[in-house]
């Protein structure tokens, strides 16, 4: 039911049950909000979005106050401005500024508001200036001296089913701290970072180490970039041109790696269906998900697909097949992946991935880090002439591109598995049931005379619940389950440019499917380079296994240190 309200004298019609902030947003009226994030519940803790309601004395937070018929909202007045200013000054009193090294960089809401409300940001001495920085594994840092206690991170960590970030009372003050519990560990998804309004989280090396890939003097620096990157900072051609401009010796497309992953994983699906063993098969390209399984659900380890993720397969191929072809000593190759993900930094250090003692990938830059490198070098992607990725790993199938979206891995795998299982050509390659932002998507896919039940989950908390329901017997009969820790899949990953919300996720997803639609080759196993490598190189089963597969084991808690 629509009701009428007015905001700053402007009459608007709005759905009953909406909040003032939602009503304002829908009508293009700006109310400053800091702790509010459309992904999360409304906690109304920052008290910046306060407004007045005509006829009432108090100020009300617009994020939690619902509209009623005839409500007259005032979003700006001397009193509102004053309250916002003072609350901002109080927020700054607990936030140590480090603006040049901040994940929000030039998009900082706090700084923008401070200018708008004439805030004296050093009115109070930073009370947290001596608070420590915590580092989680080799992936994430939490600078508690920047935290404004909105607790968005704690909520999103809980929603992820992880509960690594906790609220603890120290002295008379509560603060956010990493859990000391033995079996509770960070999975490096970076959703805390995405949802922190003030940049208290960052990837390890996000500012200090990003030049490292460019300083490999005696090495051949080979870049690869993930499917999800092309949905944010530029087109494929622009990204390649940007990397070349940065000094890359070669630029390959991780989507080609994805085509190998798909082909191998589809084989696994076929094998496991035939032998009826270790089903459901669980996808393995999300390192956060894999880490979560190894630590919290080790009983599912046999179910995880042993196929490596796209970046590690491609890295392995670069250092074996490609190096051999080019006559290069693989030890002289430095492989850098541009990834939408922080956990990929953790993934490349997994010892199980080494091939003849070499790490397939030497360094991971997140999309944000890559963007920052471009800014430092004053490279504007939109002004570059697009270039093609290098041969021989430069041309992916459409299946490889959709890996970046939730459901993409499943769809790709079944485009291939269908043909392998039925020996028939698959005409309609689009499995639309597994697409979209819904948290848990289920579908039945008819393969020959049999129906296969599959599930696609985005958001680790939902996956955790799903596993528990499999354990309890409430859910059964699944052949294949895709899990991406981040909502929307990799396009919503912890390494991506911010802000991120559902609208942005959906538009990024759309970009990837549009690229897929335009591709002539849309099945991974039909990619000529896949055929070629399988024919020439993977005949040797030992080599194929080394490059394509990995292993998993029960893991203990990773390192949490104070810096």
């Amino acid at each position, binding site marked *: 039911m629509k009701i009428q309200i007015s905001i700053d004298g402007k009459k608007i019609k709005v759905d009953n049950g909406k909040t003032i902030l939602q009503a304002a947003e829908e009508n293009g009226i700006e109310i400053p909000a800091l702790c509010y994030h459309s992904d999360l519940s*409304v*906690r*109304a*803790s*920052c*008290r*910046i979005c*306060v407004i007045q309601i005509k006829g009432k004395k*108090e*100020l009300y*937070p617009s994020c*939690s106050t*619902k509209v009623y018929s005839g409500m007259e909202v005032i979003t700006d007045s001397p*009193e509102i401005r*004053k*309250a916002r200013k*003072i*609350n901002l*000054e*109080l*927020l700054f*009193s*607990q936030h140590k500024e480090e603006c040049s090294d901040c994940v929000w960089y030039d998009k900082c809401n706090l700084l923008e508001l401070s200018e708008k409300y004439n805030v004296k940001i050093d*009115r*109070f001495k930073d*009370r947290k200036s001596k608070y420590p920085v915590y580092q989680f594994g080799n992936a994430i840092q939490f600078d508690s001296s920047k935290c*404004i*206690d909105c*607790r968005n991170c704690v909520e999103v960590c809980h929603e992820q089913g992880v509960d690594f970030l906790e*609220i603890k009372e120290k002295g*008379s*003050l*509560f603060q956010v701290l990493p859990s000391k519990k033995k079996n509770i560990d960070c999975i490096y998804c970076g959703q805390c970072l995405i949802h922190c309004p003030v940049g208290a989280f960052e990837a390890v090396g996000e500012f200090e180490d990003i030049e490292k890939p460019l300083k490999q003097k005696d090495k051949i620096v080979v870049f690869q970039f993930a499917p999800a990157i092309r949905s944010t900072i530029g087109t494929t051609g622009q990204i390649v041109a940007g990397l070349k401009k940065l000094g890359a010796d070669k630029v390959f497309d991780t989507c080609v790696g994805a085509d190998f992953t798909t082909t191998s994983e589809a084989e696994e699906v076929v094998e496991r269906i035939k032998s009826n063993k270790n089903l459901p098969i669980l996808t393995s390209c999300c390192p956060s998900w894999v880490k979560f399984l190894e630590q919290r659900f080790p009983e599912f380890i046999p179910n995880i697909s042993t196929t490596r993720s796209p970046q590690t397969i491609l890295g392995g191929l670069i250092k074996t097949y490609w190096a051999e072809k080019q006559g290069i000593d693989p030890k002289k190759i430095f492989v850098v992946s541009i990834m939408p993900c922080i956990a990929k930094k953790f993934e490349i250090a997994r010892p199980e991935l080494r091939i003849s003692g070499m790490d397939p990938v030497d360094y991971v830059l997140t999309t944000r880090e890559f963007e920052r490198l471009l800014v430092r070098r004053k490279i504007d992607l939109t002004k570059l002439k697009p270039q093609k990725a290098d041969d021989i790993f430069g041309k992916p199938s459409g299946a490889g591109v959709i890996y970046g979206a939730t459901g993409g891995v499943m769809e790709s795998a079944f485009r291939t598995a269908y043909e392998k299982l039925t020996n028939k050509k698959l005409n309609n390659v689009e499995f639309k049931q597994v697409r979209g932002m819904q948290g848990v998507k289920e579908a039945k896919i008819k393969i020959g005379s049999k129906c296969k039940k599959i599930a696609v989950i985005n958001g680790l908390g939902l996956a955790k619940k799903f596993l528990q329901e499999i354990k309890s017997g409430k859910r059964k009969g699944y052949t294949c389950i895709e899990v991406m820790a981040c909502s929307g899949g990799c396009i919503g990953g912890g390494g991506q440019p911010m802000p991120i919300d559902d609208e942005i996720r959906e538009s990024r997803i759309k970009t990837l499917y549009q690229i897929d639609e335009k591709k002539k080759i849309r099945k991974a196993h039909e990619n000529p380079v896949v055929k070629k490598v399988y024919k020439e190189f993977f005949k040797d089963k030992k080599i194929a296994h080394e490059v394509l597969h990995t292993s998993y084991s029960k893991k203990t808690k990773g390192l949490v240190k104070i810096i």
Partner: protein
Amino acid sequence: MAGNIIEELKKYNLLGRSGSFFPTALKWELVKNCKASKRYIICNGSEGEPKSLKDKFILQNYPEAVIQGVKTALKTIDNSSAFIYLRKDYYKEFGNKLKRLSKGFPIELIRKKGNYLGGEETVICEVIEGSKRPEPRIKPPFPSESGLWGYPTLVNNVETFYCVGKISQGEYEKTRFYTITGDVKKQGVYELPEDYTVKRILKQTGNYPDFDFFVQSGGGAMGEILLEKELNKQVQGIGCIVVFNAKKTNPIALMKEWTTFFLAENCDKCTPCREGIYRIDEIIKKGRIDKQTLNDIFLVLEKTSLCPLGANASLPFKTLIKKVIK
């Protein structure tokens, strides 16, 4: 029992005794008339304000009347069951007696969690629902509409239920319980007419000082400071009167006592209360009263706090600085 209890409550204009003075009849009607398959009743015996002892006094001396009040609510509100929420020490001391008196009725005793905020109505709901880290909920919705497990929930103070119990038996004499403490000869809890002024209460109980003094009226932390010339008014809040000998009281130390209380008791959720009280404490520790900064903090506390603790926290400081420190 009196015929229509809600009409009786209206007749006596009974106002809630938790300190908020919300009309009891209106609250009962809201819960009674809210569409729902079941409803809950909570008798709040969490008494967390420093120096107040009136709920303890009532539970000790008149538990029958309190339980009578709860039973009256059970009878008036369809499909309801009740909880009596008690401070840990009250639970220990009076639990058995209350259980005996509740026998045969759907009344359950709950031990309080946390300190001061553990007595806030939405925190009580969180505790009863089993939350690990109970914090105030955003209002609205108020418990009368959506409280325990989302059902309409009537939350009234121990003293309110005492009054209801008395009214239901035709024995209510429009009295109120006052805790008198501080620099007085006869500290204690006194039952006196609800319309008595601070002055009259002090005089009648033989506690009116013969020295230069000021009082904190309402509660031991949230109450406002009144000078001798301002005592011709009723007691606010939870009916607590603390007398201070003006010559012997160090106002800075007194404020420090308050900030210690607020720092420990607030939930640190909203900016003005978490950071504001931290800064008030800091300013007081320095001993130099920066009035402009304090006034700014008071403004955001009063206007933008999430719960009543923050909204009311400024009153004692403001009135002490204005009237005593100057």
